[in-house]
Every structure is written in C-alpha cells, then in structure tokens.
C-alpha cells in the first residue's frame, strides 16, 4: 500500500533567472493524501508548478517510476496528474458544462464522460443548476468547485490541489474536504494538497511537508506534526 506514486529528489525551480525552489525532496504515496504547508511565498505553488512542468526545473521527478522532469505540461497531465491551479483557471467564456468537457479532453470514452459529468454534478449540485451559464459569471467559490470538478473529469491518478479552500465559506470547505476524502477512498485518487488552513489539511492528510523559502523544513506523518507544539507555534501559527 505504501508504494510511492510521485517522488521528487533535489527539485529546483526557476522563474527566469530567479530560483524559487532549492533542492526539495518530496514523495506522495499511492493512495495517500499528502499536504504541503508553508507561509506565503514559501514556494508551495511553485512546487506544484514544477511537478506538472509549468516552470523550468532541475533535479529528478518520477511518477510511477518514470522520470517526468522537463516534459511538457500536456504530456505530464496525460499521465494522469490533474492540477487545480491557484486562481482556479476557469474558462470564463465557456459554459460550466463546457468547462467540464474540457477537463475530459484527453479521454475518448464518450458515455463514461457523460457519467462523470453527472457524478461531478452529484458532488456539486450548484454546478448542475448553472450548467448552461458562462463560467465567468460564477461566484468565486463556485468557480473553485468547478476547478475541482474539471480535475475530476481527467480521471486522474494524482491530484495536485493549490489552496482549494481559497475564498470558500467554512461550511463549504468542510464539504469540499469530505469530497476529496471520498475521491481518495472510492476512486483511489492520490492527492497532494497545498493549503493555508493547516489544521484542516493536517486532519485530512496522512503525510505533511513544511517548506520555507523553497527549502524543506520538516516532514513526517501529519499526526506527529499536528501534535508537535513547537512546530505548530513557530510555523503553522495556531
């Protein structure tokens, strides 16, 4: 059960000439939920971008044993890695349903796609109500749901989620996290979760990484990190 699905070794990332990650080691277990925590500007988004090929990287990344560092984004995605970006990445001029179809663009099983769209609507009934609406007119939270829904449409093996709770009401966040847990258990989707809300993330995840200015500070089972008073005070602030 604890085979590694995704593994990064000595991961560095660059924006033009500036370096944002400095040799990060990171692993996500198959079937597991891992969370990546850190202050603003620590490099969490950059880490996810590096994993899905959106920034220039150095170091090693393996997905299912295969090296993927330096490959173009669309190839990495086609291996089954869905990335829910910070800022949601909504296709604002397309309808809600078209957004979901775009998420399934790499698949060719038409009837299954229709079932999956239904399944997403099952998770997020508000999206069903707004299926013919221009996605740009959705509220921030609804767009966040749509982004998660779009990622589900890929039928991914691994989901990279960048602050999925951003802008959501606490109740909805709870719901979203339940959905993520269900996805993880029922559809066997492994998850790498970046979150500001450390307490929630640690509850959901089984492993946690804490980074600071592009470097790893602490890693371990989330239970241990949650229970460590000093870590909580000095890094997580609660």
């Amino acid at each position: 059960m604890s085979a590694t699905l995704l593994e990064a070794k000595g991961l560095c990332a660059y924006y033009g000439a500036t370096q944002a990650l400095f040799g990060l080691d990171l692993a996500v277990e198959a079937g597991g939920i891992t969370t990546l925590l850190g202050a603003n500007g620590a490099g969490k988004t950059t880490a996810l971008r590096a994993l899905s090929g959106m920034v220039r990287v150095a170091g090693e990344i393996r997905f299912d044993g295969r090296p993927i560092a330096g490959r173009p984004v669309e190839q990495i995605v086609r291996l089954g890695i869905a990335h829910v970006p910070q800022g949601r990445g909504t296709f604002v001029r397309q309808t809600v349903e078209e957004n979901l179809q775009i998420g399934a663009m790499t698949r060719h099983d038409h009837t299954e796609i229709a079932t999956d769209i239904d399944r997403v609507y099952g998770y997020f009934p508000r999206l069903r109500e707004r299926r013919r609406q221009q996605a740009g007119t959705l509220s921030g939270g609804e767009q966040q749901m749509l982004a998660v829904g779009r990622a589900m449409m890929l039928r991914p093996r691994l989901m990279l989620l960048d602050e999925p709770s951003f802008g959501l009401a606490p109740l909805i966040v709870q719901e979203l996290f339940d959905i993520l847990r269900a996805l993880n258990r029922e559809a066997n989707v492994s998850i790498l979760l970046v979150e500001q809300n450390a307490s929630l993330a640690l509850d959901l995840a089984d492993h946690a990484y804490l980074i600071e200015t592009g470097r790893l500070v602490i890693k371990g089972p989330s239970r241990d990190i949650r229970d460590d008073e000093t870590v909580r005070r000095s890094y997580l602030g609660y």
Partner: protein
Amino acid sequence: MNWELLLHQVLAGLATGGIYACIALAVVMIYQAIDHLNFAQGEMAMFSTFIAWQLMNWGCPYWVAFVLTIAISFVGGLAIERIVFKPIHDAPILSHIVVFIALFSILNSSAGWIWDYTIKDFPTPFGTRSLIGNGLISAHDGGMIGVTLVLLALLYLFFRHTRIGLAMRAAAANPESARLAGIRVGWMVALGWGMAAAIGAVAGMLIAPVVFLEPNMMIGILLYGFAAAVVGGLTSPGGAVIGGFAVGVIENVAGTFIPYFGRELKLTIALVLIVAVLLVKPSGLFGRSVVSRV
C-alpha cells in the same frame, strides 16, 4: 430622397459586402485561434489565390484547383505557425505583430516576384448572369454570399459541437489552463492557422473574379474585413458576416448620398461610422463581452 437609387446602392452594397463578410469570417476564425488579429491574413489569401490561378493555368479544372488550393493553404498555414511563430511563442505580443508585418511583406513581395504585378483574370464557377436588380447582384455575387453562409454554418457546427472545436476555443481563451487539461495548445494554434489559411483561400478565390488578381488586391479589402469583424464582434462569426454586409452597404450608400464629399471620403466615412459604433458598443454589435467576476 431617391428610393430607387437607394435600393440599388443597398443591393450593390450587399454584393461588395459579401466580399467583406467572407474575409471577416477568416479574420474572426484566426482571432478565435490565436487571440489577435493577423495583418498578413489578406496576403495569405492573395497568395493562395495565385496558387489556384497557377494550378488552373497548368490545366487543372476549376473545382480540382479549388480543393487542392484549400488543402495546400491549410498545410501552408500550419507550416507558417510551426516554423515562424512556434520559436517565438513567449515573445511579447507586440513582437508578434511585427512578425505579422514581416509575413505581409514577404508574401506580397514574393507574389509580385513570382507572378508579377499585372492584373489577371480569375474565373467564376457561378457565371456572371444578372441575378437581381439588372446586374447589381450577379450570379457570382449570389454564389459568393451562398458559400460564405455555408462556411459560416460549418464553422458554427465545428466550434460549438465538436470536441476539437471546444479544445481550440479553450486553448485560445486560456492556454495555461488548457495545457493543464492535457490539450496540446501549440497544435491547436497551428490548426487555427491552417483553418484560417484555408478559409482565406476560399475568400480569395471568391473575391478574385470581382476585384481581379494581383499582389495588392487584398490590402483595401482586408481593411474592410477587419472593420466588419470588429463591428460584428470578434468573438462572433455570425456577427462578422453581418458586419461585412453592413460595411458594404454603408460604404455604398454613404458614397452616393452624402453630398459633396461622399465619393472622395467614403472610406473615411465608413471608418468614422465604425469607430462610432465601437464607442457605443465597445465589443462590437454581436460580440460577447467577457463577464468575469473574480
């Protein structure tokens, strides 16, 4: 007011409007695919038309040359994107526009070099019989309008109801996000170029019998095509076609009915009207303004 003259001018306007509609459609097409206007579009259409002319000169029957030209243009458009634009895909937009200008210059000058600047006749498959109003709308004009409308319908179906059409729209609207959905954005853009070149070729071959074939034939027409596309709304192929007819009619009617300087300044008048429309409706008559909440 002379109603008969007005009617005549409106009909004549519709005939020229067909030309503008055709090219406006090509303009909107590439705008959907690459998110900006391509200044070289008219020259691409002109070049394609010369290819058709050459094929017919070598003895190809009209429709064979027609289809071959569309295929060659499609491949040519694809190749231009892959060879010229792919290497600079992350250069600033203004630099891209300079490359459009370069392309314009290259195509125009090579066409003049290969085929020289003498005016050439180009055949029409529809004949030149009068259709309406004593020759104001000829069979060719009718055929041109018909083909434009068919093209429009096909494009509509392609973009609204095929997955690849949706993928192209997604790639143009939000390339980064499209990539994250596994869409090969580079190839979608190339496909857009290919399609735009093919549509341009159709437009060129339909226009050439009216304006005659020569390297500079498209310069003025492209201007009207742009104007039509913008007035209609760059996001709406149907709007572009309506815009094309509107511009044709405005040009003719203004040229005839505005006393004194109508003839001399009809281009200016048409443009002023267009700008006026934009001031009232900044995203064109039928364009969807992007509603976005953040």
